């Protein structure tokens, strides 16, 4: 059984998986019990499985765990600030009551978090570009946009990264 090393949500982890071709999504969900990252399509079309790999948003449903050996992975469970307060996006998602069914929202928030790291003050078109890979079947897109704008303001007012 091969071992894989990764930094997961800021902690170093050794992961034992039978099959190194197993997508990261299923390692997170079935092996590690981190179920915030969701399965939606398995073909990188819906974005429900979005996590960060070395800070960049990726679809974990197609990425073999062997490909992330030695890398840094961040999931929705590790997004909150170190002091336990919510990331500005998580707070904005609550403030704007974004979710309906909520199933896609972890993936949406992870895509948005990567966007704000790169671009602290995105305009609508930049948001649409960064969020293009995330489906919301319930149709909460306008609230997602509003919440990202609000989180950007919150972050700039806090004066820190988050």
């Amino acid at each position, binding site marked *: 059984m091969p071992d894989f090393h990764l930094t997961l949500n800021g902690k170093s982890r050794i992961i034992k998986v039978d099959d190194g071709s197993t997508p990261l999504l299923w390692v997170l969900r079935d092996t590690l019990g981190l179920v915030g990252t969701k399965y939606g399509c398995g073909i990188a079309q819906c974005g429900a499985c979005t996590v960060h790999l070395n800070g960049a948003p990726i679809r974990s449903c197609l990425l073999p765990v062997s490909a992330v050996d030695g890398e840094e992975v961040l999931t929705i469970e590790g997004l909150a600030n170190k002091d336990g307060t919510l990331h500005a996006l998580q707070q904005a998602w609550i403030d704007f009551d974004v979710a309906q069914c909520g199933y896609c929202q972890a993936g949406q928030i992870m895509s948005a978090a990567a966007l704000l790291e790169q671009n602290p003050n995105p305009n609508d078109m930049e948001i649409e570009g960064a969020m293009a890979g995330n*489906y919301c079947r319930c149709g909460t897109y306008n609230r997602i946009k509003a919440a990202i704008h609000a989180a950007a303001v919150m972050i700039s007012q806090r004066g820190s990264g988050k």
Partner: protein
Amino acid sequence: MKKPPVKPVFSSLEALFDEIDPSGNNSLSTAVKTDRRTFLKISGAAGAGFVLAFSLGGKVEAASSKRRAELNAYIRISPEGSIFIHSKNPEIGQGIKTAMPMIIAEELDADWNDVKVEQSPINENIFGRQNAGGSRSIASNWDTMREAGATARGMLVQAAADRWRVPAKECTTEKSFVFHKKTHRKIPYGDLANEAARLPVPLDGTLKLKDRRDYKLLGRRISGVDNYALVTGQPLFGIDQALPGMLYAVYEKCPAVGGIVASANLDAIRRLPGVKHAFVLPGNGNEQELLPGVAIVATSTWAAFQAKKQLNVSWDESGASKDSWGELEKRAQALGNQPGKETLYEVGDVDAAIQSSAQSIDSFYSFRFVAHASLEPQNCTAWYRNGEIQLWAPTQSPGRGLASVANTLGIEEDKVTIHQTRAGGGFGRRLVNDPLCEVAAISRHIKAPVKLQWTREDDMTHDFYRAGGFHSFKGGIDSAGKLAFWQHHLITFSHDGEKPVIAGAPRQPAHEFPAQLIGDFRLTQSMLPLKTRCGLWRAPGSNTYAWALQCFLHELAVAAGRDHLEFLLELMGEPTWLPPKNLYGLNTGRAADVIKLAAEKAGWGKKLAAGRGLGLAFHFSHAGHFAEVAEISVSESKKVTVHKVTVAADIGPVINLSGAENQCEGSVIDGLSTMLGLEITMENGRIQQSNFDTYPLLRIRNAPTVNVHFIQSDNPPTGAGEPALPPLAPAVCNAVYAASGHRVRTLPLTKEGFFT
């Protein structure tokens, strides 16, 4: 396998449709007026606080089932001051878990921050109807919930008055405190809980409910009670459930519904990595419960998915679907030129009107099947032990799930326990409990806890689809430019040759638009044979009738040289409540008000650039009056851009403004996504679309601005989860005509060469 007892009533989606859609059933149509109920206090153990139990479910329950209306809900106030409120219905994204407790909290004068919402277990013997369907939860429980909150408040006030030795009528309440302002005293509810628990429940008739103008909580925007858990990735959904020692299963069914397993390479599958079991299940003869198939059980979801790719099944398709969309479409077009096979409703003399009208036009509308595609693929976790089974299920109809599982396993319902999880979207798909039945049979076979996970491909190719269909119209204009007659030939499908597929035809033809509004009307029907499974899809029936009816009405307005808004208002006529003359009947006054409001807010009649247009549509469904105006552009190359959709709605007083707005915005985007480019087709019984690459939902860049306006009338509140969807497609198609002169008569829009 023990022969299962047959309980057709529980297996029938039609029976469920009757229950959730009172518009189709006259005997239930007065159901929303509830009787005053007798509340019963349960004092519980000394010091446990205050518990007020009451009965939710409405009169429908008592009238339509043998089950007694039981005390099935409660408010509990702990001595520490927490206020627990029970939520008995499934949460599928419609926001009921937040909205219903808000109603109680308003009358209770509770501080919303003190309220904790608990999800009920599933037991219809205790809790009555436990469904999410038909947008009915609010309407049927409104009075009871208000009375429950007011009763609890009255008892807390009495407890405070007794302690202070002052008259109760001198006491006021606010934010979980009782006040006696004369003496500047106040007590938190928690401190009164044990005393209130020893008081008698006030008599009927002594309660005073708030005037809605005094509401402090209702009508505000309240964030959903599960939002913190959602944004931090906590396990809420069916797919997130895990049990000790749990295995992972997939279940392969015939790609053409009705096929049975002839043989499969089970030995080869059993040798694959991680595979623990591979076996055939014969099915139980009910396609809403357990179809024949091959189960593979493995040590992880991925191992099961990988093994499924290696599975070779030889199917016996002698009884399977051979449906072909292309064939069906050809046959329907031929039928469209003929009179309908049967007349569903007729009033006046349409034949005479055809002869005498100044002009008439014919039009043929065609729309395709669609899938539910809820983002959480079907799944369920189960553990069968010692003749009993527990399931963890993301279902919209858990109560029916109990019956379906019991029927599948041939055990009594009291041996089945369902733990209700949040569902990642429903849209009607999860009213059928086939994944529960499959995992139940698998868990019993392997005698172990197991999670069944459908792939996206399984989910899309084994849905209960919204049926496609066809409308052939003839409509006439008189010499004054008024609507003269309306002849409508509906071409739908039938599984048995006798009745139409579910939601394929109007359930109350006499109430179908515009039968109640004109003198000469005829609705006929023809049916084509179909095996493809059909189901209930958000705003069943309405989601396609509204499109054809409101587009054809626009065609007639154009033919008459009339403004669409004026034509539509003229048709509504004087304000009146049409039969059945209750909440589930069209009220032409409420209709006219939302039509006028939508037009005004959207700037109806304003000057627009070339290639830009406004389209209007109205539809009444699920007790909601909704008008929508779409503002769109169409380019020379037929690229469609939807800029803005204005929604005007009358669903009575709004409970949670945030939730209601979200439902309307979501319905508009769901409706748009569906009408722009989604279709399910079948060839040789096989569904041709299998994942989002061939069934592409709308993405964020194509989401229009949605402005929602509510007329908060004094009518009782009704649901918002469905009725905003039906007017969207006709509003957009009417706008396409206004912008481009092209009349859309086929959905999705891509079939007529448009793109986004």
